């Protein structure tokens, strides 16, 4: 696909390295050992349906697992430093400092009784020694950076006075206030209208370049992944099942789950209509698990074999950092390595 132009993006050393992360809630283990790296300046997307463990993975990095959840195993290294064992004070310095984050619903994340300016100033003064005056000036710069029109007038507004898209811009301003190295965006546009979604994702991408930060994008939306990610990790039931560049993943999905998802989604660029026939269906739901021994997708899989229920398939690494956890399709398609560009 030579017509794709590749934006200049960092291939530098890894900024974040997650290794065999397992998250436990009592007996349950919703994240069952996931590993990935994020390089400086790149956008890595984790895509999955509800119950895939994608949000818990993001919250583990932030040290913000919900009550009852613990990191049962594995390590998370940020800039070469282990962050799962940080003291609360050090963790607070990291959050909102070197790692910024934004969430799905800006209305519930912003404080409704504080002006947006006060919230940005609070974030700044928490991490940097700035005078009130200097912090306010910086807050105005940040509102301008995230393209809030007329920042001088808006800075003293309360969140309820802003639209959903504007609130998400304010959330982004708070998140990037201290020039983080990594921005974690957990479903940042799911609550937004589609024309506003495009604006917000373009904004995040512009800031990524201007502030040379990396972005971890958590989403369920394959379209968003295809347009804004450099690499994609597909999660299913707490594990990584596939990892690829978007053009490779959409052009030639290798895991039966990824294939199923792509086939099951009606495409905007496709005139296929209900009159022509039904959509492809992945049977069952993510709750139909195969127990802990086998491949979690086996009960829903069109390619399932006897061995699939006996052991969790290992991730095979192909060229260009591509990974897939399905020996059945790999053996059926020996040509995959050849077309894996």
């Amino acid at each position: 696909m030579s017509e794709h132009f590749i934006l200049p993006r960092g291939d530098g050393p890894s900024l974040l390295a997650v290794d065999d992360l397992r998250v436990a809630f009592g007996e349950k283990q919703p994240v069952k050992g996931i590993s990935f790296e994020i390089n400086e300046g790149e956008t890595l997307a984790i895509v999955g349906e509800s119950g895939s463990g994608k949000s818990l993975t993001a919250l583990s990095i932030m040290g913000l697992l919900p009550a009852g959840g613990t990191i049962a195993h594995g390590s998370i290294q940020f800039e070469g430093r282990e962050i799962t064992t940080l003291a609360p004070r050090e963790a607070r310095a990291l959050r909102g400092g070197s790692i910024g984050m934004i969430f799905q619903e800006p209305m519930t994340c912003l404080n409704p009784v504080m002006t947006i300016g006060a919230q940005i100033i609070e974030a700044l003064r928490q991490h940097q020694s700035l005078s009130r005056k200097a912090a306010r000036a910086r807050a105005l710069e940040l509102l301008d950076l995230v393209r809030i029109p007329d920042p001088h007038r808006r800075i003293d507004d309360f969140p309820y006075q802003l639209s959903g898209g504007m609130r998400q811009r304010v959330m982004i301003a708070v998140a990037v206030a201290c020039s983080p190295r990594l921005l974690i965006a957990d479903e940042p546009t799911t609550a937004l209208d589609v024309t506003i979604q495009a604006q917000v994702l373009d904004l995040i991408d512009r800031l990524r370049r201007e502030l040379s930060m990396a972005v971890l994008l958590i989403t369920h939306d394959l379209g968003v992944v295809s347009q804004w990610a450099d690499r994609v990790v597909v999660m299913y039931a707490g594990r990584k099942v596939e990892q690829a560049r978007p053009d490779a993943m959409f052009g030639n999905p290798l895991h039966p789950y990824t294939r199923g998802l792509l086939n099951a989604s009606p495409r905007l660029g496709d005139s296929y209509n209900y009159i022509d026939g039904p959509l492809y269906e992945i049977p069952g739901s993510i709750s139909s698990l195969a127990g802990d021994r086998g491949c979690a997708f086996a009960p829903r899989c069109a390619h399932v074999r006897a061995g699939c229920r006996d052991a969790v398939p290992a991730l095979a690494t192909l060229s260009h950092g591509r990974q897939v956890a399905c020996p059945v399709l790999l053996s059926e398609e020996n040509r995959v390595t050849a077309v894996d560009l």
Partner: protein
Amino acid sequence: MSLLSISELSTHFRLPSGALRALDGVSLDLEAGETLGIVGESGCGKSTLGKSILRLVEPSAGAISFDGEDITTISQRGLALFRRRAQMVFQDPFASLNPRHSIRKILTAPLIVHGIGGSGKVGKAERNRRVEDIVRRVGLEVEALDRYPHEFSGGQRQRIGIARALVLQPDLVICDEPVSALDLSIQAQTLNLLGRMKADLGLSYIFISHDLSVVRYFTDRVMVMYLGRVVESAPTRQLWSTPRHPYTRALMDAVPDPARRRHAAPIRGDLPSPQNLPTGCRFHPRCPLATELCTKVEPPLKDFGNGQSAACHHV
């Protein structure tokens, strides 16, 4: 004769902060057996339209005629008969099922309300027969009837929501974002179910959605709405082959699609509040084609033939 015919329907709400013109002069025709998609962003009036048709909210002006009968002036008894033939499927399968009622009770309630089956043992048996039939049709086991909503996944709950709408054997079903809260793999299952039910039971759908790709797959005809007005209406294939209205085009460009690289910058500006509508064409503050005329005069729907019409001075 159309199954449903709506003319110049308006629904305004009076709020402490002023009037909200949620729906402003919308007309449409729905033929029997057809699926009409209503697409647009927040505040476009698509949900208000669905609720106004069933008179779950009272329209302020305009006429709704169903099978030749005017619904806006009908008697209470007539309204009850109409609602037996026109049902609704809601977006959120978690919020729209009473958590303290068994599935049997949830599915039997509409039959009791509409006096179906009659009284006594015979009536009860008839209602049970209908409920068991519909629960199988939507792909659940009869055993599900004696369980409660929390025991089901989101996709299964939406099947129950669909069963509740279909148990009365309606002619028209208004689906308000029926797959928006569902995971991708469950969306396909649910759309296929709705498609099967339409073919098996001879239904007509009004399919309200913000998701253009779903609308493109599942509808025969589409109406694009913006801030309470219809901006474009066309057969589905035609709308995608030649979108006329600049808003339709902006909406299509904004949807990220794996099959296509981004080519256009997203349209600028925010969605205005429906309480503070722009003058002239409501889209003009965000429109790349806007001229002086657009700020002053609201464009009428222009007919392009082949069932396509668009409200823009510049197309």
